[in-house]
């Protein structure tokens, strides 16, 4: 299951989707909204996605992972829209026979997702906002608000 959704993510459901009776290990990564960034309070985040391509790119990542590790089940769910601190932005879950593979595959999927999937995040602070990663660090520090 690959899902891009405006609704709050049901972590338990993602885990159940990824589970398998033949698997002994499930690894789950949950990305949540932190209440601070750059030492400033985060008021909220805005996520947007190029949805059809985000799903397609995630599928490519899963395909590679399923080649590298013997996945018995998997699920990826990414939230879009406005998220407050503490809310869940992304959940990746994979199940495998043995635990090492579950850790490795889950980490691979979230690493690749963050690098390649067209989803975009804006941090909104009390005194301004910033598209995460949009500009090289030095320029980001002097961004206008």
């Amino acid at each position, binding site marked *: 299951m690959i899902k891009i959704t405006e609704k709050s993510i049901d972590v338990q459901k993602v885990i159940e989707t990824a589970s398998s009776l033949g698997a002994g290990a499930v690894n789950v990564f949950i990305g949540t909204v932190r209440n601070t960034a750059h030492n400033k309070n985060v008021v909220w985040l805005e996520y947007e996605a190029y949805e059809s391509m985000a799903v397609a790119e995630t599928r490519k990542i899963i395909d590679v992972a399923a080649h590298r590790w013997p996945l018995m089940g998997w699920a990826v769910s*990414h939230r879009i829209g406005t998220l407050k601190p503490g809310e869940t932005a992304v959940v990746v879950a994979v199940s495998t026979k043995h635990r090492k593979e579950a850790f490795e595959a889950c980490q691979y999927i979230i690493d690749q997702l963050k690098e390649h999937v*067209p989803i*975009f995040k804006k941090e909104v602070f009390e005194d301004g906002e910033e*598209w995460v*990663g949009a500009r090289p660090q030095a320029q980001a520090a002097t961004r206008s608000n």
Partner: protein
Amino acid sequence: MKIQIKAYGIAREIMGGSIELEFAGTTVHDLRHVLLVAHPQLIGLSSLLIAVNQNYASDEVKLAEHDEVVIIPPVSGG
């Protein structure tokens, strides 16, 4: 030819939303040049990819009238 261009994130904000462009060039490389001239603020981004029909496209890819062309600034999902 005319191409419809969509953009996301900071690229969307810089370009002011989706645009329709009368495009005289042929490749992704040409399109990128046109966009950077029209919207110099795009130059300051860490990266600027162009997706054609839902795949990241390299510079030499040729564009056709009904291609789905999307401007992809640095991604930051997760």
